[in-house]
Structure formats: C-alpha cells, structure tokens
C-alpha cells in the first residue's frame, strides 16, 4: 500500500500549510518549511526507477482529484485570512504569501496538469477547472497541442534554446503562448462556423470560469485578499511552471517534430520529486504518451537526467551557475544521445550560444559514456 500512500504527501503538506496559516505568526512558514525539508532530503536520495503498484489505480485518481480540491480550499482560505487581517506581522504576511506561492507551484500545479491530460470526463473537467489554480485556463491548449506536438524545437513556445536565460525565456514564452492560444481558439470557432463571441466557444467557458473563481476570491477576501491570492498564483504556479519547462527541455533537440523520441527530454527521477510532482518529472514517459496516467509512467532507465529538481530550479535563477551545470550534460547528450542529424543541429546551436567548447571533445573532462545508463544491476546496487 506504500505506493498509494506516498501520494498523500502532497495533501498532507497542503494541510500543514493551511494549519500554519490558521495559527498565524511565524507558523505560517510551517508548510513551506516541511516542503523544503522534504526536497532537501530528496537531494540526497538515490534515483528511483521503480514502477508503481497497479492493482488499485482508482486510489491514485482519488488522491490526485483530492489534491486539486484541497488546493482550491487552500487558496480560498488564504484569501479569506488576508481579508480578515489575520497576518499581523511582516513575517507572517511574507511567510503566508511566499508559502502559498511556492506550495501552489509544487503541490497545486502537478495534479492540474495530470487531470487536464486525462480522458475521463470528470477528471478532465476537474483538470480544466483546476487551471484557475495557475490563473490561466488557456494553458492547457498550448500545452496539449503545441508543446506536445513540437517539443524540443523553437516552434514550441515552452522550449528554451541553448544560451537562453530563464528571464529571457519568460519574456518570450508568454507572448508566444498567448499568440498560439489565440490562433488555436480562432481555428476552433472558425471551423465550427461560429463568431468569436458565440457563447458556445471554448474561450467563453474558460473566461467565465476565471471570472467565477475571481469572484469567489473577492467574496472571501475582499480586494486585498483576491489580489494577493491571484498574485501568488501568477508568481507561483503560473510563472514557475515556465521555469519548469525551461529546465525540463533545455537545449535538447528534435529533428523529428511531431514524433517524440525518449531522449528528447530531461528527467528528474529522485523519489520525493517523483511523488510531489506526480511523476511529471518522469518526463520521457509523459511525452511518449500524454494520456498515460502518472502511475503508469515508466522511468527511462537510459534517459537524460538532470540533478535534483529543486537544485536545478534554483540554479536556473542564476544563469551563470545554470550554464555551468547544463553544459557538460548537453555535451554528453550531443555525443551519446543525439541522432547524426540532431548532432549537427546541436553543433550550430552551440555556436549560436557561443558555447564552442561543447563542439570539441575533451576526454579528460567529458562525462563518462554510461553516466545516465541505469541498468538493472546498477539500480539494485
């Protein structure tokens, strides 16, 4: 049963955070502290390539749906507490804001992503509604259509090319996504012979959902409560999701857009990140079949791996450090994973980024050939 209970970690952290908010004062940091503690321990744990138990998979779905609902409760609770003037000190105000922001990203966003990929009506509906938790109901369309079809090419707004910093990526990705979302929405209403303002159009439903969500935040917390709650969602789950995209596809190359191959994404296979992120960092399997539920994803034992997720996200915020970390990995990918055609694209991308050293072999410093290869024997060891 351990496989099933593992995923209760996310709602448990949400509960701790909510309790800390309720207690107020310095306790507002409680959820954040637990989350960072878990991620800190995770950084010292070996990679986990195990498959999940498949006997009672409905339990996973229930926990996932429950986490989305609990995330809604959490943000409403935060708004209400702000409206009540509950956070009296600066430390309490900052702690509540930062904790809600960061927990919204790590705990709230993954189940939303998981469910809007699902086929079952109720789960998908919850996933779509759940996009209020990233304050962007349009994120799904550019993700499911554009990102999954064009991953690891500059045609994908979620993709960061070699040499791109996370800050440049954020400035590029949002306009790219908005443009793409408009293009796709317009295609859908045009195909169905409707006017843009037809109430049956998908965008109307999305906009109505967002308005209703905002209205609830306002009703609970007034103007300040709603504003701060929305700000945590925009700066947390919404923007940090783009940091996730930045690191998870950084610099990898596909010469076969539309036909994903497992080596075209990075993976983060540490045990706690797998659990908290609902396996989204177990990324090759997700891109191979985006309909596959998180508990059926099979970690790629020979796939490209980055260091622990939290560390990589933090490094991304300091571009020189991120580049120091990623360059040897990209060089290894170019040498051992890229197809001949992809290798030639990589060579040009390295020149474009000014990373000429990646195009010259250096046997003394290059990573060993099997550094990412996890054979069964090595996993057991």
């Amino acid at each position, binding site marked *: 049963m351990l496989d099933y209970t593992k995923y209760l970690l996310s709602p448990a952290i949400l509960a701790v955070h909510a309790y800390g908010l309720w207690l107020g004062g310095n306790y507002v940091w409680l959820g954040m502290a637990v989350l960072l503690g878990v991620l800190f321990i995770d950084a010292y744990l070996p990679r986990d390539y195990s498959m999940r138990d498949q006997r009672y998979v409905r339990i996973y779905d229930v926990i996932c749906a429950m986490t989305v609902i609990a995330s809604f409760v959490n943000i409403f609770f935060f708004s209400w507490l702000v409206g009540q003037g509950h956070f009296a000190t600066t430390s309490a105000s900052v702690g509540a804001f930062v904790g809600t922001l960061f927990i919204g990203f790590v705990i709230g966003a993954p189940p939303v992503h998981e469910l809007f990929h699902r086929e079952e009506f109720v789960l998908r509906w919850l996933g779509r509604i759940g996009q209020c938790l990233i304050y962007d109901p349009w994120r799904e369309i550019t993700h499911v259509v554009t990102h999954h079809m064009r991953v690891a090419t*500059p*045609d994908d707004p979620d993709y960061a090319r070699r040499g791109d910093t996370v800050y440049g990526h954020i400035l590029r990705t949002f306009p790219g996504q908005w443009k793409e979302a408009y293009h796709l929405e317009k295609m*859908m209403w045009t195909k169905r012979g409707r006017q843009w303002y037809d109430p049956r159009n998908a965008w109307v439903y999305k906009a109505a959902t967002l308005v209703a969500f905002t209205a609830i935040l306002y009703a609970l917390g007034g103007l300040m409560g709603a504003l701060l709650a929305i700000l945590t969602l925009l700066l947390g789950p919404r923007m940090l999701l783009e940091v996730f995209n930045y690191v998870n596809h950084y610099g990898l190359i596909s010469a076969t857009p539309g036909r994903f191959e497992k080596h075209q994404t990075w993976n983060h296979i540490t045990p706690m990140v797998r659990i908290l992120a609902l396996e989204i960092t177990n990324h090759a399997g997700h891109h191979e079949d*985006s309909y596959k539920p998180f508990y059926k994803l099979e970690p790629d034992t020979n796939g490209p791996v980055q260091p622990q997720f939290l560390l990589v996200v933090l490094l991304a915020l300091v571009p020189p450090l991120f580049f120091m970390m990623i360059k040897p990995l990209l060089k290894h990918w170019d040498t051992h994973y890229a197809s001949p055609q992809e290798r030639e694209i990589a060579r040009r991308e390295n020149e474009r980024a000014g990373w000429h050293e990646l195009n010259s072999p250096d046997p003394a410093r290059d990573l060993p050939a099997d550094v990412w290869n996890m054979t069964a024997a090595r996993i057991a060891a």
Partner: protein
Amino acid sequence: MIKERAATAPARADLCRVTVRGKDGSEEIFDIRRNDLLLKAAIEQGVDYPHNCRVGVCGSCKTRVLSGRVSPMVDLALSPLTNQEIEAGYVLACQAKVRESLVVEAKLGRHALLPVRTVASRVVRWQRLAGDVIDLRLALDAPVHFNAGQYCTIAESGSFTRRSYSYYDVPPEEGAPAGEVGFLVKRLPGGQFSEWLFEKDRTGCKFWIEGPFGIMGVDDPDRDGLCVAGGTGLAPILSIVGDRLKKSRVARFTIVFGVRTSGDMFANDRLDQLLAAYPDRVRLVTILSHEPADSAWTGPRGLVTAALGEKLGVDFGDVAAFLCGNLAMVEAVEKCLVALGVQPDRIHADKFVPSGTP
C-alpha cells in the same frame, strides 16, 4: 475480399483488433497495441493505410469510426476535418490513439509501403527557374526507394527548419532505388526555408531527407489520367505521369497546369520534353490566372477550375484525377470534378499547406 494479418482474436489483452472496411466491400484485419496511434501502428505493420503528412495537417488519413473507441491527440476542430465530418464520426488516423477494438471505414491501398529512411545528401543542382522557383537536386549518400507522387521532408544540415517537398523524378525501373532526387521549391515571401534557399547558390550544401511519405499516384495503370497542378504542385504530377506512361502502353494524360503569368512558366523545358516523347498520349493545357489583359498570351486565362469542363474533352466518368497545389485550389478542383462526374474514389489529391517558420 477479407485480408487478415492476425489470428481470429487478439492474442494478448493489450492488443486491439482493427477491422478496416473499404467502400468496395473489402476488409482488412490486423491487431495493434492498445494506446498506439492507429496510423503509425498500421504503417509499421505494412498496412497500406492512406496518409500523407502524419501530423494532423493534410487530412489524408481521414477514417470513419464505425464501432470502438479512439482518443484524438488534439481537438479535431484543429484538424482539416469539417464540422460535419467530426459529427459523423470521422477522425484522423494519425492522431487517433486506439483504446479498444475498432471497426473503421477507410480506403486502403493495395501496394507494399516503402520503409521511411533518413539519409544525408548534397546539393548537386541549384537552378533558378522562372516564377521564383528553384530546381533543387540532391545526390544521396545512400540510395532511397520512393513511389511516384510521394514526398519527403528535407532540412539543411544543422537547421531545425524542415519542409516537405514532392519528388519530381520518375521512380527508377524495376523498383530500384534512386541515387539522386529533385524538388521544385517555390519562394514564399518571409518563408524561412525558401528565403534561405534563394539567398545564394547552395550547391554543395548538406541536406537531410526523410521519407518517403504519402500515397497519391495509385490507380489502375491503364486508366486515363486528368492531372491538375497549381504552381510547383507540378512536381508530383511530373513523377506520376512519367511513371504511368512507362507502366502502361495505352493510358493518356491531360495536364492542366495553372500559373500566374506567362513569365512564371518555370517548367517549359520539362513539359516540352514530355510532349515530344509522348505526342499522342500527353496533352497540356496551361492556364494563367494573373496574365495582363494586353499581353500576347492566347491561351486560357483564369483559375485552373476554369479550364475544367466539357470543352476539355475528357471522359470525366472514367478518368483518374491527380491534383496537387495549394489547399484552396485543390479543394476547389475536387468540388468541380465531382460535379463533372469524376468518381470521388478516383480523385487523388496532395494539398500543399505552408509550414511554420521556426
């Protein structure tokens, strides 16, 4: 005719049985893994499933689901299917994940599919033609097989940008592979690939080609052909006509070729050679859509659809039609030909859709 590639029931629980029914009563049965894409899995098994782009753009793999369940990878409203087709149960096989055993309706081909390969090559001809067209010819590091009317994707070495072009060559005799292949590339203002190609002579540049893809030139070999080409849509038509002329001693062809002006007639040499080699079996009608009224041109003017009609002297009820050009042109010609009595199953079309510009 029922053609079974599988035992009477799927051997494993993770397999789904797919029964493809043709409108002619034929049936083909095969098994694929649950959650596999219908088109991809069918092609991998050697099933001659109709297809072209394989990424949800061209609509060639249009399939009607009669029973069973598939999940489309994307909202079908974002595909070339019409709203009526979506409501009638059509899906695109290239985007359809198979969830359970299916009975579907599609028109399967009756010839062996060629394996898709990725091959490096060098430009051996970069020749500017009239009408902002380049004749691009590649010598391949390893020879490839292709059928008349097929296409491949090409990409310059080191570039993300890849584009699809039809071979204009006639496939070599006896199924031999080709060591060189050629394409007609039209300059599209702002188009990343074509603008780059036009910038300077690219002879010697390395390219990657991946293919072959698509099915277009398949019909009874001895059936007369009506070929309608818009601009560089002439490339697969040259391949199909040349191939069918070699395979049949009796089939005759009418080529309706539409370009904008008399200054854009980029293929005069090739067409003249074809007419000289087969004077009794090939007829050419060139029609100009934007020729100045005061020019010396005495031939027909207007869109290619204006050249189609009884005056063309074609037995529309018995002809095989091969159409290639931009999406709007091909759709207009399809409608026109159906109205003139061409059997829909005998209309073979390749629709050009401009790609993005990464």
